[in-house]
């Protein structure tokens, strides 16, 4: 026997379903729209410079010559510094939160880490200019050039503003993301894994190492999410990196990133080719972060879903 529902009810359901679906479609098409919009706006620059835009090192608005390599370099190097510093710390925090901390400590600490993630980028930047940069100039850079000055990455005058400052501030900013997602990933490893290894006589740390092995791809995903944030971070980096489009091996030297060149020069870009080149950088940034985030989500999902 089939249930009879009145047609009026059915109509309401159908309308409701498709109305909400249209909104889901809007969200979905938003990404396409964003990509299309930037592609259209950057067409003059794409047509004029082609692939050499990615390898060119000259950024000269007067001569209308644009190459984005210094910015790509700056973005990659500052993000790499951030990950090198933040990753071990984040994994330590994640282990602490998921395996070691009593619930009484875990909840407030998780909240503090959420707070750290919630501080606006501009406040990090303000703090960077007035606290971090002077500290780097007077303490960190002299220390490194005294003890490790023979390495090319520690050459140059201690100026404060530069790649090192950008990397440090980025590491503080990506830490809460990597830590909180890694914690979720570790927590999704089944309890039986811990019991099994501890039951065989493993020490706490040996048991944690096995759990880390299970959570490996999830932690990699968390790291990629952190990388995505570091690549796109704008204000804090713009305020401390020094904003000079050069490629230098020294961490003390000023640099420039893709996001910060857009933030700095967009409003003062007068010619249409200048704006077009800046939008092409935005498009590159967009594509980079989309790829990184897709990989990250797939990795994180694969762990937190399959074990649930």
């Amino acid at each position: 026997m089939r249930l009879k529902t009145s047609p009026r009810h059915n109509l309401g359901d159908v309308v409701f379903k498709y109305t909400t679906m249209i909104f889901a479609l809007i969200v979905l098409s938003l990404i396409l729209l964003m990509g299309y919009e930037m592609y259209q706006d950057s067409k003059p620059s794409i047509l004029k410079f082609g692939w050499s835009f990615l390898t060119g090192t000259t950024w000269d608005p007067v001569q209308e010559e644009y190459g984005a390599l210094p910015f790509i370099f700056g973005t990659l190097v500052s993000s790499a510094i951030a990950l090198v510093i933040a990753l071990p710390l984040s994994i330590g925090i994640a282990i602490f939160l998921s395996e070691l901390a009593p619930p009484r400590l875990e909840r407030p600490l998780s909240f503090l880490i959420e707070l750290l993630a919630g501080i606006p980028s501009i406040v990090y930047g303000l703090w960077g200019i007035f606290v971090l940069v002077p500290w780097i100039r007077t303490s960190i850079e002299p220390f490194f050039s005294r003890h490790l000055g023979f390495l090319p990455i520690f050459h140059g005058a201690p100026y404060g503003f530069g790649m090192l400052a950008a990397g440090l501030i980025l590491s503080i900013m990506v830490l809460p993301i990597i830590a909180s997602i890694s914690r979720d990933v570790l927590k999704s490893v089944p309890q039986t894994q811990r019991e099994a290894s501890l039951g065989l006589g493993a020490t706490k740390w040996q048991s944690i190492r096995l759990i880390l092995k299970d959570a490996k791809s999830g932690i990699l995903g968390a790291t990629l999410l952190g990388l995505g944030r570091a690549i796109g971070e704008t204000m804090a980096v713009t305020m401390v990196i020094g904003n000079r489009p050069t490629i230098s091996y020294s961490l003390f030297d000023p640099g420039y990133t893709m996001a910060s060149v857009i933030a700095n020069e967009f409003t003062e870009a007068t010619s249409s080719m200048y704006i077009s080149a800046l939008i092409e950088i935005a498009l590159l940034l967009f594509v980079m972060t989309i790829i990184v985030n897709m990989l990250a989500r797939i990795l994180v999902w694969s762990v937190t879903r399959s074990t649930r």
Partner: protein
Amino acid sequence: MSITPFVPSWQYYRRKIAGATMLALCYLSAVLAIVPLVLIFFYTINRGVSYLNLDFFIQMPKPVGEPGGGMANAIVGTLVLVATGSAIGLPIGILTGIYLAEFGNNKFAYFARFMTDVLSGVPSIVAGVVAYGLVVVPMKHFSAAAGGVALAILMIPTVTRTTEEMIRLVPHSYREAALALGIPMWKTTMQIVVRTAFRGIITGILLSIARIAGETAPLLFTALGNRFWSTSLDQPIGSLTVFIYDYAKAPFEDWNNQAWAAALVLIILISGLSLAVRVVTRSKFVQR
């Protein structure tokens, strides 16, 4: 038959020591994570609080050289921008969340969910560039509306995903009970399920407002900034964050100090929102 006593081998000590060292490092990193948070809060409160007075909230910015003045226009500007962003972003986000939670077991929904997560990773400056192309270029001038569009793009993923998660937490028995009474599906969703998940949805809204209230990069070339009083969506508008940026870069100590005061206001606002979220989520259905 004798019982051999337990004689620890060197491997035993090695793994004990290695374990203790690594655990100690984990504790240490948890402590280290708090250091920057404490430092940032300490400096912002310390430097901001002495320049925070009534004038800051009710006065307009003064020209260079004249001491005093406030950021009344920027505070109102931030509110206008957040309200505009919310007016566009919240309905889209909430309805998408409802769709994903209630009808979300098909390929399209999986893809939409995935792309929403990806969208949340798009840099805020990119949202600004897009809003510039979509709104500023056709209008031929910078405007609060353009800033609102940029902020809406940024808040949609957060609202969508929290709405979905919160609706999913509503027990199935609620739906079944309502449907058994002959209430149509859509009424069940809107009046039973969404109402039950209401507190959770509010959480998502607060979280997303906290996210966009602190945004600077997408406003730089959409809302631009404005030293004068304006609440018009058609005109450039000032915001706390852009003021902090301009005042932090300026070589005037008075302006730098006001930047700290503005940062303090912003931090209080955003921490207050996260605290509100904590309080709201202590309800029945949102236990984590």
